[in-house]
């Protein structure tokens, strides 16, 4: 059998394969470029970008938990101006879609960010992070309130023609409500899940471990929850879903795809295996060859048939 066709389209963005980097776990792509050609990715999603530079939260910012990590990095980034003036150059020769994750405290900040990024030709799409648990104000509030989410996405939609992927928070009672609100407001795709809010305490110092007290849980520990949410959301929405949360292997990725995700993103796994993304792409192709599947699209929602 020839190389299988792994291509897929996410809200108007064509990907040669369905595996992208998860925001905040892959820098601007340079770091893993030291291990392999980043052009192998389906798409590059860069870290959370805000209007103004952010210093991030005080250390410690990472603590390991059972099969997962809690992080409280807190959107440390040099700001959108710096991104456009300095970082963007490195992508001019790139052939893979570049997706910029945007975040803020206020609705206006998201709108200004989208306005600023709209004319930047290197940017293929925006991932609107309405779900960051590491910023005190706003951030997650947008992702947990149906009306807020609707208004925010509508506002961003009005100022950009770039494809919008709305990133959902798992820290809600019913994720499908926010998913539907985002779709109705004009989202081209959804991505989920962001990290689950959590914490850890050091019993010797009798203090929370993270400098920021609370952090976001990611890694294998969150996979069953993420998978369930992808399953529930894909049942309800018409737009494509990008699944993530604890994907370590091609098998994990295939579970998300069979649950209804059209593509997947890989975050924490990169820290453990710097070659995680190319390994997962290869693994998906291998599975397709083994099972005589010519087109990747046949696998999307495969577990839903009859469900």
């Amino acid at each position, binding site marked *: 059998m020839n190389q299988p066709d792994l291509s897929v389209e996410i809200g108007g963005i064509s990907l040669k394969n369905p595996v992208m980097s998860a925001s905040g776990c892959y820098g601007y792509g340079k770091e893993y470029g030291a291990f392999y050609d980043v052009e192998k990715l389906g798409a590059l999603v860069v870290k959370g970008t805000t209007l103004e530079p952010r210093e991030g939260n005080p250390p410690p*910012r990472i603590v390991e938990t059972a099969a997962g990590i809690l992080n409280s990095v807190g959107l440390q980034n040099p700001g959108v101006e710096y991104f456009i003036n300095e970082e963007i150059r490195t992508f001019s020769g790139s052939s893979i879609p570049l997706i910029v994750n945007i975040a803020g405290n206020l609705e206006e900040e998201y709108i200004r960010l989208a306005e600023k990024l709209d004319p930047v030709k290197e940017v293929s799409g925006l991932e609107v992070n309405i779900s960051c648990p590491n910023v005190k104000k706003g951030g997650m509030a947008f992702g947990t309130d149906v009306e807020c989410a609707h208004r925010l996405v509508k506002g961003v939609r009005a100022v950009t023609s770039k494809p919008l992927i709305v990133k959902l928070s798992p820290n809600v009672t019913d994720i499908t409500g926010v998913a539907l609100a985002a779709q109705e407001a004009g989202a081209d795709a959804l991505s989920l899940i962001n990290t689950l809010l959590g914490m850890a305490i050091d019993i010797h110092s009798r203090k929370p471990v993270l400098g920021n007290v609370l952090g976001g849980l990611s890694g294998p520990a969150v996979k069953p929850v993420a998978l369930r949410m992808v399953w529930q959301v894909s049942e309800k929405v018409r737009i494509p879903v990008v699944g993530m949360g604890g994907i370590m292997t091609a098998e994990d990725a295939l579970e998300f795809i069979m649950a209804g995700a059209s593509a997947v993103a890989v975050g924490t796994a990169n820290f453990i295996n710097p070659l995680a993304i190319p390994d997962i792409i290869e693994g998906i192709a291998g599975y397709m060859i083994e099972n005589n599947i010519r087109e990747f699209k046949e696998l999307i929602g495969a577990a839903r048939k009859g469900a």
Partner: protein
Amino acid sequence: MLFSSKSEIVQHQKKGPALFRIDLHAPEICGEARPGQFVHLKVEERGYHPLLRRPFSIYDLDRQEGVLSITYKVVGLGTEILSQKRQGETLEIMGPLGRPFTQWKEDQKIIMVAGGVGYAPLNFLARELLGRNIKLEVLLGARKEEELVGEEDLKAMGIAPEIAVEEGPRGFAGRVTELLKRKLEEESFHRLYSCGPCSMLKEVTRISREKSLKGEVSLESIMACGVGACLGCAFPVNEGSSESKLEVSIGESSGPKTSYQRVCVEGPTFSLEEVF
């Protein structure tokens, strides 16, 4: 160039109650590694407990044989699992990572201060400095005698380190920083290099500043990626002392203006002006 591969354990020796030295066959990493750099090891191959890799300084290397050595102390699950690995088994290793110690051509007389297993990155540096015929003095400190690291290896290089053991009975009965203070009253050096617990490094930095002695320290931080992608290892670094573009100043802190830098990329070595 960074490498990520499986490497075979050539030798694994117990050096003290909780101290081990492990020698790994990693020729690619050996080819490029410089003193002060570290490797990121995966101690658990199958499961997810622990999930993350563990960073260790390069203690020594034999370029001809392609063998890289690490000296480590068992402090928790990861190092405990590591300590049970046998010769002939393999480990996933990533490296070389981080910014090496800067070496200055004009330096002729150098002092090193190590706290416990903090001696690890200094051993490789000592070997290079001695190869350049630099006069080197080393102060080794620990709380207990059995926690001292490096004495044997230094002696093999022809260096007799001065020892400070807080709980005695060997050497100077007190902190290694007290020994440093006394030393600097008597003698002057072109440079200082230091690694050890954070509280010790703080004191070393303070003492060196008083004496206008320049140098570098190697810091530790909890790490996830080890390559600069996650921003998890951030440490507040004094502004105006580095050129990194990533810096975003941290507001509202008293004292010198600082910005968070990645210990895994901008460090783990930092100049004495940059830290604390």
